[in-house]
């Protein structure tokens, strides 16, 4: 397990040295927050910004998690993965390193989005509520980054990874409860949204904001995350080039 920390350090150094990438990932969610949250003349709820912020936070995590798979994709294309796989260190360390780095990076990005939200008028909550929000986002990040990293291990090249990425992320976002409450959704969308793991995370954060403890969603996200990670560990242990 010691290896995990060194893999994370490596990815972190590479990330902060690639200056553009640090900010580019924030553009989309920030734009959604500002243009949809503030400018769109929709009134599903009395404070739409407060309603949409959890959705945007989860969206930040979604894109951070899925695009986190490109880290492994590039390691593979550039030949680093081969060198890592030939090391005696357990191969799942590579996976855990990616999961933790991608999830933590997602949390950093979510924090920036959260600050922007508060600056443009979203309500401020208690530290405990923020703590729970972060826990939910982290669990969601683990689920996505484990999935994306393992997917990247399987797919041949970056183009197909990017294609699968877009194919998954857009529909997932629009069929979740991110943009509108369940009661204004058409029937078919309501069914889809209630099955969508994105909604688990979004609904959970909304419940936290409302002062409740959404145990069911948190536990479901945790179980999903553990199952996907366990499968990914098996895949990494057996991988050949």
């Amino acid at each position, binding site marked *: 397990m*010691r290896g995990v920390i*060194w893999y994370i350090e490596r990815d972190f150094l590479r990330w902060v040295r690639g200056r553009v990438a640090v900010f580019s990932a924030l553009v989309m969610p920030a734009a959604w927050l500002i243009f949809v949250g503030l400018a769109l003349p929709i009134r599903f709820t009395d404070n739409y910004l407060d309603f949409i912020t959890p959705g945007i936070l989860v969206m930040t995590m979604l894109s951070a998690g899925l695009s986190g798979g490109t880290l492994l994709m590039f390691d593979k294309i550039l*030949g680093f993965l081969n*060198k890592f796989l030939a*090391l005696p*260190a357990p191969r799942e360390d590579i996976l855990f390193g990616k999961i933790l780095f991608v999830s933590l990076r997602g949390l950093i990005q979510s924090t920036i989005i959260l600050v922007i939200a508060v600056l443009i008028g979203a309500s401020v909550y208690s530290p405990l509520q923020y703590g729970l929000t972060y826990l939910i986002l982290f669990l969601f990040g683990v689920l996505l980054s484990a999935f994306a990293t393992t997917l990247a291990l399987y797919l041949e090249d970056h183009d197909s990874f990017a294609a699968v990425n877009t194919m998954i992320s857009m529909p997932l976002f629009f069929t979740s409860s991110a943009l509108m409450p369940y009661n204004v959704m058409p029937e078919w969308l309501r069914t889809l949204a209630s099955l969508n793991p994105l909604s688990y995370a979004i609904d959970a954060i909304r419940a936290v904001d409302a002062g409740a403890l959404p145990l069911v969603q948190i536990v479901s996200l945790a179980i999903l995350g553990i199952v996907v990670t366990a499968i990914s560990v098996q895949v990494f242990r057996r991988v050949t080039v």
Partner: protein
Amino acid sequence: MNAIETHDLTRYYGARCAVNHLTLSVDREVFALLGPNGSGKTTTVLMLTTMLHPTEGTATVCGHDILRDGEEVRRSLSYVPQDMAVDIKLTGRENALLFARLYGTDTPKDRVDELLAVMQLFDRADDLVKTYSGGMRRRLELVQALVHKPEVLFLDEPTLGLDVAARATIWEHITALKKDGMTIFVTTHYMDEADRFCDRVGIISNGSLLALDAPSSLKARLSNDVITAHIDGTFRDPGVDGITLFSFANNEASFLAENGREALPLLADAFTRAGVRVRSLALREPTLDDVFLHTVGKSEEPAGFDQTKFRTMLRRRK
């Protein structure tokens, strides 16, 4: 126990056989696997480093089975892949330190400093690798591979794309490592390097091992003289008894003859009779290049690439 033992090691990609029943053992020496592009060198290395499962056969590295004891195998070896992979956004020291830590080295910082100095990278250790030359990157890869003092070192084309001086430096290091008792398994296209620096070479073509011995023995086995002829215009094998053509490329034909001095005038006459214009004829001792062309050429003849036929075909197209 030999450091590397393979027994009928075989790998298929779909229906294509990349490595065909390879049996060899390598121990405390510099061993080179020579072969043309696509002959299965990388595939062999990948199997021995547990990155690829053989379709058939077995192999052990330091006594550990590559299929059953993958982790033990990886503990005893280091692997430098064919395509250079050092992080250009990290410094040389960071690159090396990462591997020292991943290997669980006791004093990673000291070990890295020591090796950076040995590989003449110490002065530039804190520069980003982006600013390194190809030769420096190769040496950095050697640093990464050596941080944990492996018993067996796999180098897939370690001198690819380097200039003469950089290649010589790499080989100096490899030779020094062997003196310390390390087993070094390299693949290369450079015959002169294999001849000068390797204890034994294996020649592989289409996945099959065709020859396996010390370079000097392989050359002695040819036991013939080599005659090379520079040809102007079209070339045809003049077909003299006892003088066999074994390669033709770039207007240079190479022949084997038992007694070169006597064969020279015969060959010259035959060329004149056949109407082939010869610019020069030279007689020399066989080199590993000749051994290689002779060995590989023979195996490829049945289905292989026919230069003359190809040229006629091209000419007809014009």
